[in-house]
């Protein structure tokens, strides 16, 4: 057990002398999904600051609107006036059905395309950061049934996720998905709705206990009149409340943006998000807020610059502390994308092969269970979700069974192959190449490439013994099974 760090020590940058392959591996596995040997070598050679620059760039990579979503939007734009003009409930119902199906298909495609982007090692860290932000600024498809709103929301998180948190929060308050999800569309001067104001203070900026009920009530008034118009956000002047409000002891005719500034001026704002980062990236039980004070102070001084926060967080001494290594349970997305990267595969572009297993592992990408997002940790793991993980690992290590695919799925695969993506599972050739290393070589390769810790000789011997046990003709079968076993192991569920 290493000596615990004081807050001041914790947030010092990791000394360059402490930057080794193990540290690089830990960073890549936590900030992204996997630590492939060549990526580790590059990160080690580049040094920590340069690696952080690459993982969290100044200009976030873009994510264009998926093709189907564009087509769906065109059709939906035609349908909406038709529905309004419908004369009978039956007519409306027919249009409803088509709308729902289009939205569902568009949301499925959106999730798939996001997974593909996130599977790209050059983008993984930033997309995981976007996922973290999505887990803070939660919206769910269950309530917000517009795929395009989710696209816009996610895109705000992406494009503003490297800049000042104040700007991001203000933009999110105007995100159509958010206006719908937290009932801003129902918030008016005469009948204030507090849902958004509460979550703003509790879940986005300050955390529980750092505001009074009165602050919420008054803050809610500042967001009255926020509506979704034809082109996104619009302010409905009649419902807006321009009167004086007292929030955090300050009285004035505050607008929504000004209330957000007032919230960020509160002391708790400096440590809230950093502590949430620790929960998402470091440990199920982060230290209390006070521990994050030095990090928070620097973040506040930078104008709440999120990119700087990432660099400081992932570049800190505490991030690499032994207490926080190899003991964090991967979320389903992490497990799935980690596998795809560790096995150097292309993501199979079929909902059945990706979104369905993900759902069975307990994570439906556009459906966090509630406003708090995913709780994670041990809650990810039970007999069914563990079985789903094991099944997924097994599927990726066996040839794709194309016999069970339907016509649409076959088309998708063909399109992917045409675009140069065809490595959907570990094929015979790769098993053969691995097997040519011999039992010791295979055991070392599997243990060193996949597991988050260096394992003992006895552990390796277990793997070698297994590979040696049986007829030579079946060695490659055993190599395949050993690969699957390591990917199903308790160790591989951790990062």
């Amino acid at each position, binding site marked *: 057990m290493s000596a615990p760090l004081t807050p001041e020590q914790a947030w010092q940058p990791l000394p360059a002398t402490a930057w080794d392959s193990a540290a690089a591996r830990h960073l890549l596995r936590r900030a992204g999904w996997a630590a492939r040997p060549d990526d580790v070598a590059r990160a080690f050679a580049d040094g920590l600051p340069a690696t952080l620059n690459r993982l969290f760039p100044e200009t976030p990579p873009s994510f264009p609107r998926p093709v189907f979503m564009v087509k769906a939007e065109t059709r939906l734009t035609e349908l909406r006036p038709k529905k309004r003009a419908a004369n009978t409930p039956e007519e409306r*119902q027919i249009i*409803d*059905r088509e709308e*729902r*199906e289009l939205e*569902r298909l568009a949301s499925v495609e959106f999730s798939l395309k996001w997974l593909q982007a996130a599977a790209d090692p050059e983008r993984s860290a930033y997309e995981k950061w976007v996922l973290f932000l999505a887990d803070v600024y939660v919206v769910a498809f*269950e309530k917000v049934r517009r795929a395009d709103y989710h696209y816009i929301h996610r895109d705000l998180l992406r494009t503003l996720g490297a800049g000042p948190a104040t700007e991001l929060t203000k933009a999110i308050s105007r995100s159509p998905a958010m206006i719908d999800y937290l009932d801003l569309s129902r918030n008016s001067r005469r009948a204030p709705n507090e849902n958004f104001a509460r979550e703003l203070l509790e879940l986005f900026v300050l955390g529980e206990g750092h505001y009074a009920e009165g602050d919420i009530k008054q803050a809610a008034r500042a967001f009255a009149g926020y509506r979704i118009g034809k082109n996104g956000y619009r302010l409905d002047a009649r419902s807006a409340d321009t009167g004086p409000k007292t929030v955090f002891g300050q009285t004035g005719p505050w607008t929504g943006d000004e209330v957000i500034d007032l919230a960020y001026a509160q002391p708790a704002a400096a440590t809230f998000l950093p502590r949430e980062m620790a929960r998402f990236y470091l440990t*199920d039980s982060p230290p209390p807020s006070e521990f994050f004070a030095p990090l928070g102070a620097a973040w506040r001084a930078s104008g709440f610059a999120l990119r700087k926060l990432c660099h400081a967080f992932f570049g800190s001494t505490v991030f690499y502390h032994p207490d926080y290594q*190899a*003991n*964090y*349970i991967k979320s389903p997305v992490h497990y799935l994308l980690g596998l795809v990267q560790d096995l150097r595969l292309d993501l199979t572009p079929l*909902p059945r092969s990706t979104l*369905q*297993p993900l759902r*069975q592992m307990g994570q*439906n990408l556009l*459906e966090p269970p509630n406003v708090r997002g995913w709780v994670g*940790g*041990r809650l990810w*793991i*039970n*007999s*069914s*979700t*563990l*079985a*789903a993980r094991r*099944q997924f690992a*097994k*599927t990726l290590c066996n040839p794709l069974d194309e016999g*069970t695919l*339907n016509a649409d799925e076959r088309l998708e695969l063909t399109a992917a192959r045409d675009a140069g993506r065809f490595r959907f599972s570990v094929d015979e050739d790769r098993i053969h190449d691995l097997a040519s290393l011999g039992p010791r070589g295979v055991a070392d390769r599997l243990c060193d490439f996949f597991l*988050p*810790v260096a*394992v*003992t000789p*006895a*552990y390796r011997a*277990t*793997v070698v013994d*297994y590979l040696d046990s049986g007829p030579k003709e079946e060695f490659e079968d055993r190599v395949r*099974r*050993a690969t*699957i*076993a*390591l990917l*199903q*192991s*308790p*160790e591989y*569920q*951790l990062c």
Partner: protein
Amino acid sequence: MLLPSTRREFLRHSTRGIGLLAFSRFAPRFLVQSTLAAPAPEKDRRILVLVQLAGGNDGLNTVVPFDDPAYHALRPTLALKQNAILPVSDHLGLHPACAPLHALLKEGRLGIVQNVGYPNPNRSHFRSTEIWETGSAADESLSSGWIGRYLDNACTGSPGSTDPDAIHVSAEVPQSFGGEHPHHTFSLSPGAARAGSAETALLERIAERDEPVLGGNHSFLRATLMDALVAEKKIQRILDTAKPASPYPSGNFAQSLRNVSALIAAGLPTRVYFVSLGGFDTHANQANAHSNLLRQLSEGLAAFQADLVARHLDDQVLTMTFSEFGRRPVENESRGTDHGTAAPLFVMGRDIAGPLHGAPPDLRVEKNADIRFGTDFRSVYATVLDRWLETPADAILGAHHERLGFLG
């Protein structure tokens, strides 16, 4: 966990505490009596076997209105000839490949629930399957399955038990099984290859190791994995030593049912089994393909029922088929049929009350139109939940649905 609301549930709970009660002088008489009277677990359970016909079964060529001129007009090449049909009533009969089911029908072990569907039918495989599996209305999206909600309500299994509550013969957990609370579900490979133990050999050895030592989360993962491996070993052992009491045809579907029978006979507390037969999406050249599927289905189901009878388990098991939709009455240009709406389903057990339930579909539809459903599938579920599994059907389904009479 809900308080036990049926005598059966109460008994299940109290058998765990039987030691204490037996020694207590102060236990109320009725409690002592009822725990002493508690039957062994194997006798005190009712099991549901769900058989999914994946792809959309052509109901109209399964339960055939052979003397309806509309049927023949709609299907110039696919309509089955009257002399080939196995008669069920004056106007309805079964596809010739369903001979084993026909026999069961005559014995009162099989029932046909006709024209089962739902309002505002959806013709997407994915979406309609989801509707059936979640027991939802067409315009709502539920995240839990109807069996999952049944398991939430039924407090099955004892704490600390590694035995599964529900078993599915498929790689993916059926959406039906997802509940609000986690349940032990178990996946049996279709055809249950005996390679099972070879596949997990190394994993077991790794899980048994006491190192690396990586903290609480690692121990938790290891413990969860060990529980799963224990359940798998137990089930594999049952399957390896199982001998059916009655013969089965070859093929994955029949073998899957054979394995289900073995697990039931072994006394597992599992209440629900799920088996799937795929290939029903017969858009082209339907005749032979559909015939083969119906034969597999019929022979498999009949063999399963015979096995249960031979083992004296048939009073405990109810089997039910379902499919995401039926197919369009009019055949298409490729001697096949396109996605439709409602279709009949089969229920099979020892005491099925009558061969036909519900009313047949009205075929007086426009050329490319679909049948309008007669019986809501949720009524079938409600009947099973209420009259077979004895759980609060309305709570599980979120609304009241009329009970049907196939269980008397």
